[in-house]
């Protein structure tokens, strides 16, 4: 039985949800649904849409928005905040280590293969220390809740976690439409996120930068599914949004082409995958890249955020070792638990997974976006068998986890309030210090009973409230 976050053990509405309960009663379901239409019209007009590759249909679909906020108490957030920061520190320490002496491997805590033979590991980074020793400047930690006091990390995102624009826009819409709900000032604000992001990016300016750092956001272009977010963040930080063709590298420095001629760039918040940033070093057939960018980076002429190769820390096979990393690098116990995970690369684990697949959730190690996974209890026998065959053929490509009873939260249905499963992604910023705005993106599986919250598969988003003590 999933934990319904609105109610306590005795079935009474929890104190933190009381204002929302009151608001729902006052407005009525019909009234709320009318307001939802207004909200959607605003989203459409300002152009918050996302595209999903290979799905066809409307390339500028609106991500569904649910009006009812998801709420955490100050106490709940305290734990989450500490746990997320701890994780961000450990993941960056791990990245520094595996691109230098590899102590964690020498100590026998992690096998060498899953690090060095990982496709996300970039040997070109070996021996190089990025400014501030920061590799992952924005760590998105996906968290699920399974009980009143039980939070678990589903996965880490160390490259360029997306979705933060929804956190900001959802709040913007909610405050615009329901100012009364916020008037008491109990909801912690999130709108300083872009300021924090800019501060963090400036803190990691490269050695060659002597003046105020020039920061840019690098996007693959307006056809990218997250383009809206790229332009939104550039706008709120007041920096240029550049495409690869706007940049060039010259003798260890990077410039953007402006109407005044070339202008130096110091810090690049890039939203392009490692493989495509520099055809001289990574994929030679990439038309997106900036030739010489990586050379400029290694020579200290520019900082790339995130660092190439940071993805090795958020691989699903590496994930199982994060609690070990926290112990090894920080000497602490993990504040947020991992979900127990069977790594099919290990023969014992694999045997267990194959035997119990109908009870488990299995995923491809390198997959994302909710694709290539199977939810055992919801799959047919034939589907389970087909998936088992894939695991047998290539065990190292798969992991499995128990099917979790993800918590549910109140969600607006057509005729009343319904319970829907959610997860949560906060965004921890890493510069010379850590910054974490009290909030994040709550994704909700809008289909009844569904556990898949990905926006590409029928998921929606909600505003997330952290109540101030």
């Amino acid at each position, binding site marked *: 039985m999933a934990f319904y976050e609105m109610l306590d053990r005795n079935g009474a509405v929890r104190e933190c949800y009381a204002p929302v309960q009151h608001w729902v009663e006052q407005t009525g379901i019909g009234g709320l649904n009318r307001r939802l239409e207004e909200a959607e019209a605003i989203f459409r007009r*300002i152009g918050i849409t996302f595209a999903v590759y290979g799905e066809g249909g409307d390339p500028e679909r609106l991500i569904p928005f649910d009006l009812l906020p998801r709420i955490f108490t100050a106490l709940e957030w305290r734990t989450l905040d500490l746990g997320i920061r701890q994780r961000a520190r450990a993941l960056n320490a791990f990245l520094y280590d595996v691109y230098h002496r590899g102590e964690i491997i020498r100590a026998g805590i992690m096998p060498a293969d899953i690090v060095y033979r990982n496709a996300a590991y970039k040997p070109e980074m070996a021996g190089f220390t990025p400014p501030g020793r920061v590799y992952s400047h924005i760590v998105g930690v996906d968290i699920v809740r399974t009980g009143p006091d039980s939070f678990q990390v589903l996965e880490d995102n160390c490259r360029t976690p997306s979705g933060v624009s929804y956190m900001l826009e959802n709040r913007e819409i909610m405050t615009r439409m329901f100012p009364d709900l916020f008037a008491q000032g109990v909801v912690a604000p999130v709108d300083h996120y872009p300021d924090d992001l800019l501060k963090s990016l400036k803190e990691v300016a490269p050695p060659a930068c002597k003046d105020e750092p020039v920061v840019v956001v690098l996007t693959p272009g*307006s056809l990218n599914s997250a383009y809206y977010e790229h332009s939104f963040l550039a706008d709120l930080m007041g920096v240029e*949004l550049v495409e690869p063709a706007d940049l060039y590298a010259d003798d260890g420095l990077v410039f953007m082409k402006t109407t005044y001629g070339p202008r130096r760039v110091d810090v690049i918040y890039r939203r392009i995958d490692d493989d495509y940033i520099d055809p001289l070093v990574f994929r030679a057939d990439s038309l997106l890249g900036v030739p010489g960018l990586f050379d400029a980076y290694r020579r200290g002429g520019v900082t790339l955020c995130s660092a190439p190769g940071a993805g090795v820390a958020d691989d699903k096979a590496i994930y199982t070792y994060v609690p070990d990393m926290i112990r090894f690098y920080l000497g602490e116990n993990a504040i947020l638990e991992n979900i127990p995970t069977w790594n099919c690369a290990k023969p014992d684990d694999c045997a267990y997974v194959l035997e119990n697949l109908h009870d488990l959730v299995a995923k491809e190690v390198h997959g994302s976006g909710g694709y290539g996974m199977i939810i055992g209890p919801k799959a047919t026998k034939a589907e389970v068998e087909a998936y088992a065959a894939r695991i047998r053929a290539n065990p190292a490509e798969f992991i499995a986890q128990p099917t979790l009873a993800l918590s549910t939260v109140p969600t607006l249905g057509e005729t009343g309030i319904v319970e829907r499963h959610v997860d949560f992604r906060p965004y921890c910023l890493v510069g010379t210090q850590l910054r974490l705005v009290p909030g994040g993106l709550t994704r909700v599986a809008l289909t009844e009973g569904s556990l898949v919250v990905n926006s590409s598969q029928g998921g929606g988003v909600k505003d997330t409230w952290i109540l101030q003590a």
Partner: protein
Amino acid sequence: MLSRTADNLFWLARYLERAESTARLIAMGQRMAILPGAHHREEWKSIIRVTGSQHLFDKDAVIRESDVVEHLVLNADNPVSIRSCLIKARANGKSIRTALTQDMWEALNEGWRNLENYDVAEARAQLASILDWVKQRAMTFRGATESGHLRDERHDFIRVGGALERAQSVLRLLDVKYYVLLPETDVVGGNRDHYQWTSVLYALSGSRAYHHVYGGVYSPWQITDFLMLNRRFPRSVLYCLDQLSYRLGRLAQWHGQRRPCHASIDAMVSSMAEKTSGDIFRQGLHETVQRTLSDSNRLGIEIAEAYHFG
């Protein structure tokens, strides 16, 4: 500012102006075609010709209103059609959203796909309201730009693109009049000639302004004077050239540097300002229009080169 941003701003304004000018052309064609005894659908053919769309038709094809609606309103593959101009203007805007205000973006984004939903018959049935709607899109964008856009070089690139495209669109409208030949039985200055000239004025929303300036008497010389040489009517060629000169002058100030485009616009303005409508008719209206069009095309290229987006 990124050169790509300048490029997109410049073209965004051009495409939007072009969408509007295509709408105005069609409105003019409609008006000319319903004149008593309109001549063998020459009107529609000349409109197709001045938009450079004649390659879509056989040489001797008879062109009807439905063809014009299909190719100049709905055909997304014809670069001058209203639909493709709106799509491109929005794509330009989308790739540089940070350079636009929210209101400007909303003006571009609102209804940009409306024309997808029409077939030719429906579009014909609602042609007047579609054309009005297009003009309103462009006006909303201009209004948003006028009232909220920061007056830095971004703004100048938008205005440069808009003024250049508008000058060209007025020139093309005038050229339609050249192509719509009068039947042999008619005389220059006769009824039909008169109606054709007033249709040009009407398409440019210039009838009232014309009356204020010339006191209600129509003549080809005065209408030409008004649309080419009047420095106060915002849809005259010389007015647009003055605007270009002013905006390019501001860019030269921002950059502390004059480029070849600055010399060119100065030459274009002074050459046009010296003319009278008598000169224009003596040299040939068509020839003057064509020469000014080619000068303005060259100017567009020089602007792009000057600001590194060529």
